[in-house]
């Protein structure tokens, strides 16, 4: 144990040790601008991301391969044989944008459920962040940036695999990536409210059973919603996934810009922003009481 602790004290002349490092010297410290605040918190999530990357890599590439093999090739050969694809589009080309958006949703949801409850309730690490010069908004923004990045990587990985299967045939398909990020965030930010308010994580199984799984099946990812009973179609219109699938499919087909593109984007942005607004409030109520 060192006898000399002078370096630990507020009175140590920091300038001699770190020239210009006014964040370690007594008195007012050089403040962090908001970009820097979010940046240093993102850096923490990046550390976590790197730790779990290898495990995630498997699921991010293996799952798409399985999906594409069964849905795209298996189901696709049936569909193409019996009816010449969907509206003349080979089923593989039809289903890949749907699967990209489903992937985006799954990653957004996955990152915004148990991990969020961990930070709020289990290790309460959000609280540790709030003990440093950060506000609830900084803490959440940083987490959202990381989730958006995660969605982007996953959707991108899926598209790379799909391209190897022959499921991507236009550069316009790349436009599906920002849409995928929006889809992921449209699901993620509202789920932060759940993480902040729920007493425990049993709520999440209900979320998956009642929301995520039905949405995956009935949002036009695998077949046109026109094939649903008429009363179910408005349900699809209300969900972010359908809007993402519509935009993504248009990008993949490289066809004309869909008439309602602004509505689709607007719905996704609205879900994201409204979710963000309520989650800042909910997390603040929970952690800054």
């Amino acid at each position: 144990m060192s006898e000399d602790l002078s370096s630990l004290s507020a009175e140590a002349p920091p300038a001699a040790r770190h020239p210009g490092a006014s964040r370690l010297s007594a008195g007012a410290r050089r403040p962090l601008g908001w970009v820097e605040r979010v940046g240093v918190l993102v850096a923490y999530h990046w550390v976590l991301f790197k730790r779990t990357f290898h495990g995630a890599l498997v699921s991010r590439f293996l799952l798409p391969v399985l999906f594409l093999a069964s849905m795209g090739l298996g189901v696709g050969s049936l569909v193409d044989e019996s009816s010449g694809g969907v509206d003349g589009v080979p089923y593989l080309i039809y289903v890949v944008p749907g699967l990209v958006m489903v992937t985006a949703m799954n990653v957004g949801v996955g990152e915004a459920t148990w991990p969020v409850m961990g930070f709020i309730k289990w290790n309460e690490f959000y609280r540790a962040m709030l003990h440093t010069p950060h506000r609830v908004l900084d803490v959440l923004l940083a987490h959202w940036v990381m989730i958006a990045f995660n969605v982007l990587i996953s959707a991108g990985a899926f598209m790379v695999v799909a391209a190897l299967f022959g499921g991507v045939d236009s550069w316009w398909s790349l436009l599906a990536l920002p849409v995928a990020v929006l889809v992921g965030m449209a699901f993620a930010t509202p789920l932060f409210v759940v993480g902040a308010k729920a007493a425990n994580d049993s709520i999440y199984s209900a979320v998956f059973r009642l929301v995520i799984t039905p949405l995956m099946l009935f949002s036009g990812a695998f077949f046109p919603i026109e094939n649903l009973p008429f009363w179910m179609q408005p349900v699809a219109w209300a969900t972010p996934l359908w809007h993402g699938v519509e935009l993504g499919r248009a990008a993949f087909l490289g066809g004309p810009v869909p008439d309602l593109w602004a509505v689709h984007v607007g719905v996704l942005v609205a879900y994201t922003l409204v979710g963000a607004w309520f989650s800042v409030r909910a997390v603040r109520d929970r952690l800054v009481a």
Partner: protein
Amino acid sequence: MAPDLLLTARNLTKKFGDFTAVDGIDVEVRKGEAFGFLGPNGAGKSSTMRMVGAVSPVTSGELRIFGLDPETHAQQIKARLGNCPQKDLLDEELSVEENLWVYGRFFGLSKAEVRERATELLEFAQLTERRADKVEHLSGGMKRRLVIARSLINNPELLLLDEPTTGLDPQARHILWDRLFRLKRQGVTLIITTHYMDEAEQLCDRLVVMDKGAIAAEGSPKDLIARYSTREVVEVRFDADDHGAFADSLSGIGERMEVLPDRILLYADDGDAATAAIADRGIDTLSTLVRRSTLEDVFLHLTGRTLID
């Protein structure tokens, strides 16, 4: 405000709904002081510390830290504070040193700065050998030391320690007291909460006894003992379940008596004389023990309860 006042609280109040956790306290802490909040579970110590740490809004009253209002200057305050909360709030998946690094980065310190400070602080907390271990695998006391080390990463001028030694074994506790003492000598102002009276006596220049959200007394440990207790105490035990039955037989010995379920405390400046008086009356005790008064006795006198219930 005088420049050497790091903390001033006037009529500081914290409510959770209808419940008042902190009930209009007045506190001043000067630069270089070690100041304590001594009180039992639920006294409002942590609620106070969270307001001072600028992580919990003040319900009413006035609070200034470094002369700044936490409502408007939370960031500036937190940049200069060290915060060791009652709960560890560590990322157990990360290693010991990673926890220090990421936390230091939250303050906007450079990679080089956090690495250098982390090395020093690991030494300070005697965790250098465990630096690469996952926090998950540390003992409770080691985690506590890590949290204290982490709270020093930004070279704070004011260090908030909410029950810093809970979970530490006696030896680790004494080493930590020694460390904190040295920090204090080097000019770091300490605010400590504890329900251990020996910790308060060892560390604090000045303290407040807190109970049910209010301050019951304030002063140096010595002052408080002089003011609210006698120099010595005789602890008398009987071979009986109900000690209250013996109170009458002891009355008149010493200046004051406290009857507890398992013993009777007689307050007297001369403990030996009091013990002799008990023997003179021919009272059949199981044991008598003379000891010096402590803050525990102060607390008992002020609230009628023991500190650790």
